[in-house]
């Protein structure tokens, strides 16, 4: 008998682990179809109403809109700032590299509650009232390092000879950047922007400390949890999930098609 336990142990373990990680996602999705009278805890009846009337609870949609707007603005800023830093780190020799690396590493090694409370204390001491823009400021701060790390990995794979070739052909500095460097970095920049968007969109702790009266989707869910989360929130959560998974799949399929083309 060559049937060995060892051969099946790992796949079974991995399958069980994935079931564990997928359960709450499936649960959120299923309960977005629940017909709800008072609380969305017990299953009552199947209905499409929540999906057809997503903004039935206007607060949910408003919070969602805020989250999207904040994520877009903070992603644009942090991707710009972070890409510049990544290029400097990957391409230039300069004094203070160790200090720069440390300052970039620290935000990733700091618990969110510390960053959130620190920035909130600063706004308090300076006397800035919190709202939409203080959330943006906070989100740029904590996503920046992740952008740098992601783009830096791409800068490292860039062949400097391509830029040299451009210059040899009398391209000026700006066309070398926009026609050679930037297109080559673009996949890394896009990945960084997607990561930054996802981090900002899903952030709760830093947001709670720096939002004042402004609400975001995670903040809405947190506040609603005490009374019970309305099914509309499940609808929006599920919708975001489906869109995000679709984007990931498109990116992966395109990448594998490209790899095939390169091999052919």
């Amino acid at each position: 008998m060559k049937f060995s336990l060892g051969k099946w142990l790992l796949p079974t373990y991995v399958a069980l682990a994935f079931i564990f990680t997928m359960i709450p996602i499936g649960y959120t999705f299923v309960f977005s179809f629940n017909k709800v009278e008072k609380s969305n805890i017990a299953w009552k009846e199947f209905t499409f109403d929540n999906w057809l009337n997503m903004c039935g609870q206007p607060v949910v949609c408003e919070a969602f809109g805020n989250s999207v707007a904040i994520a877009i603005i903070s992603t644009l800023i942090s991707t710009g700032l972070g890409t510049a830093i990544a290029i400097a780190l990957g391409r230039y020799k300069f004094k203070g590299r160790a200090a720069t690396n440390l300052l970039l590493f620290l935000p990733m090694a700091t618990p969110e509650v510390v960053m959130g409370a620190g920035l909130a204390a600063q706004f308090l001491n300076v006397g800035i009232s919190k709202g939409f823009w203080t959330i943006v400021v906070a989100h740029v701060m904590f996503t920046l390092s992740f952008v740098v790390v992601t783009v830096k990995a791409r800068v490292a794979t860039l062949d400097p000879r391509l830029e040299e070739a451009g210059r040899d052909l009398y391209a000026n500095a700006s066309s070398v950047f926009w026609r050679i460097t930037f297109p080559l970095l673009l996949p890394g920049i896009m990945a960084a922007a997607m990561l930054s968007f996802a981090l900002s969109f899903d952030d709760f702790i830093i947001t709670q400390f720096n939002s004042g009266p402004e609400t975001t989707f995670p903040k809405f869910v947190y506040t609603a949890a005490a009374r019970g989360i309305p099914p509309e929130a499940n609808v929006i959560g599920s919708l975001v999930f489906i869109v995000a998974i679709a984007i990931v799949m498109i990116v992966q399929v395109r990448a594998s098609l490209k790899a095939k083309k390169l091999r052919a």
Partner: protein
Amino acid sequence: MAFVALGQGSAGNSAAPTKASRVAFILLAPGMIYLGLFFLTPLVSLVITSLKTASFTGEIGMYDYGFQVSNYAYALEQYLPQITRSFVYALIATLMALLISYPIAYFIGVKARAKPILQAFLLTLVIAPFFISFLLRTFAWKQIFSNESPATQFLQSIGVLAPDQYVIGSSFAVIAGLTYNFIPFMTLPIYTSLERLDTRLVEAGADLYATPAQTFWKVTFPLSLPGVISGTLLTFIPISGDYVSASRDFLGGSDTAMIGNVVEANFFRIQDYPTASALSVMLMAAIVVLVSVYVRKSGTEELL
């Protein structure tokens, strides 16, 4: 236009070092100034706030600048159980996440290497939880194990739980929730390390009559150590400051509060900013000490 200047700077690395470093400065300055203003000075603000004294007017939420070091003693004395609990929970949850994630990462990075489509699919599964709000996911666990739920009733009927015992509100629920939320943060770095593992080294181990277990502990695991280290840090640090899982509205109960819950309560409900700040400063200091000791012990300096 920092980008336009880029090409000029890299034109001659050795020829014009001053010019190159000026370009580097232009590229670095905006982002680093940003971090200085909104990451570093807030840490200073935190220290300043942690030393403030109660206002003369006695108004709630009003404090004067001062040097009241006793705020720290007060915070420690008042919240020692929550502080200890944070680190105990974070340690257990990190170890649990490692136990769950390592086999996943190994399977995707080593076993599924020959099947790129399976590999891509499984990686998507790993990051899938990122795409649904972690608050919704945590709340889903609360509903699954709510007191009247079939899952809880089942556990009570088979005797795992006493009839008057519930899952939600227990340390177990909080630690399980913390573990669950941070599995992808553990899996991805370990996967990255294992994906690069040269399987010929493992074969060599087998050729030299090592048992699979010996090969694993002597070859595979040490080579995956950088991933394990960054995975454990990416898990332990955020968990130690988390207050969603331990919140009473989510998986926690009356005696599961962690340091984050106390900071939140002091900041928002009690408006005791000095105590909230003192707790945050202590958490940060503890993390810095732990991380530097851990990184030195494990011998990896390059984390970025």
